[in-house]
């Protein structure tokens, strides 16, 4: 089944065309590695898909249905989650609050709906364990290391059990051990049918996890090949050439 189709997507900031007629498709359980130099338009493309940036032209289909209204609320509810390069976290709040940011669990008492803190803390604890991250859910995020904060952001994206997960530079701030853990997590997602788009400058990481590689340059798609049909050398040449 086709999860996502991006058709002729363009994005302009005043007179600056940052995405130029980009099209691609993703199947269920497929992992796409999205690469390109700084300013190639990778993050903007993903933000257009999640609705945190408005697209100037083009269409997006999710599970073969056109998205008429694209906003972070809509895309989250239909099953698209994104881990942003600049992490989508509130650093003065606890880990469990960040993981459930915007989708808190509630219970009704006599008068009003209140937060179901116990359940959220328990679920957060489980999710962190699955990611092999050993931190208390009640810890304030500001007190965590960069790698731990990245793990919180990934756990935040996974808590909704999305069909499509977008990871923007997920390993850039991580230690080798933490990177291996994230790569392992991405591979596990494929096994349960989650499609993933990974943006990274680390081509070795991209080639380890991806099924297909898409390369952007100056906002245009210049390569879209299965991993077996390309190589790190070819991609590097295209990016810097």
């Amino acid at each position, binding site marked *: 089944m086709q999860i996502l189709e991006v058709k002729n997507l363009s994005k302009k900031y005043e007179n600056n065309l940052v995405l130029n007629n980009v099209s691609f498709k993703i199947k269920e359980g497929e992992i796409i590695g999205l690469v390109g130099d700084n300013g190639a338009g990778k993050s903007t493309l993903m933000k257009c898909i*999640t609705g*945190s940036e408005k697209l100037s032209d083009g269409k997006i289909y999710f599970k073969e249905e056109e998205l008429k209204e694209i906003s*972070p*609320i809509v895309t*989250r*509810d239909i099953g698209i989650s*994104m881990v*942003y390069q*600049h*992490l*989508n*976290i*509130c*650093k*003065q*709040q606890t880990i469990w*609050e960040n993981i459930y*940011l*915007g*989708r*808190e669990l*509630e219970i009704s008492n006599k008068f*009003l*709906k*209140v*937060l179901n*803190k116990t359940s959220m803390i328990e679920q957060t604890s489980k999710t962190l364990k699955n990611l092999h991250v050993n931190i208390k859910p009640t810890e304030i995020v*500001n*007190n965590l290391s960069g790698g731990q904060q990245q793990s919180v952001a990934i756990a935040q994206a996974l808590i909704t059990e999305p069909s499509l997960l977008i990871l923007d530079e997920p390993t850039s701030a991580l230690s080798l051990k933490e990177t291996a853990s994230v790569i392992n997590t991405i591979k596990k997602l494929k096994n349960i049918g989650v499609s993933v788009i990974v943006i990274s400058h680390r081509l070795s990481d991209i080639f380890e996890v991806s099924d297909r590689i898409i390369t952007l340059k100056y906002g245009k798609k210049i390569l879209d090949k299965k991993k077996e049909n390309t190589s790190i050398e070819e991609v590097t040449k295209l990016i810097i050439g």
Partner: protein
Amino acid sequence: MNQRINIYLLLLLLIILFSIISPYFFTYQNFANIILSSSIIGIIAIGMSFVIATAGIDLSVGSIVAFSSCFSAVLFPENSFLIIVVCFLSACIVGVINGYIIGYKKYPAFIVTLALMSIARGFGYIVTDGMPIYGLPSGIKFIGQGHLLGIQFPIILFVSIFISFNYIKNNTKLGRYFAYIGDNERASFNAGINVSKYKLVVYVISALLCGIAGLIMMGRMNTADPSAGLMYEMSAITATILGGTSLFGGKYTVTGTIAGVLVIGVLQNGLNLLNVPVYYQQVIIGIILILGVVSNKSKSNANADIRS
């Protein structure tokens, strides 16, 4: 957390200090007086804490107190129920204007609420011709002077609002979203939180609490006064910051704010008992605010250092 403990310690120290210095301080009646005199600023400061949590500010609170009370008293000088309804409605309108311009049009809260401070105060003077309105109906007097189960009604209102808002802050989406928005507005938006709507809501909450404060004030004085509530924004901000709410948003505390209000109340009461002139009191409260802001800023800088 440390700052919150500091404010409770400061409150305790002031109580001990004034109890030693003045024989009239440590009495039930005097404590009731402190809470009663703190009730109006306390209610406004609770709303201010919610606003500051979103990294906003509401400078129009004192003017909303004056405008909503005067407007309602001018329209229905003899009907308590209608005074209450109009007082809430008129306060709510100012809150909606503040919240809409800040939340949806993205203008800075400082400028918008500064403008509304002037506009609402001006309307207060216009509707009353600049003259206080004396002699309000008994229902309004009850709000400011009445007793329920032997306790003064403003104290009951103050404590009820404190308990309710502390619960909302800790246990509801609404209470948490204000902190999330102040902490990282972009992250909150990306997480699907309707940032504009919640910003509007927070200024309406602040204005409605000002409406309640206006009713208490009218009842206490038996007067609707267009010059009422001058500098209330400063007292509310002082109490909020002293209590440990971050001026930069993201972290707030209702209990801390109440402790901040009581610190100011105890200080004013104690200094009055010691016959310290009011000008000196203003200087002392100003110094305490500076200490609060410096403590807040240095904590924030420390956090920034950790992040960088």
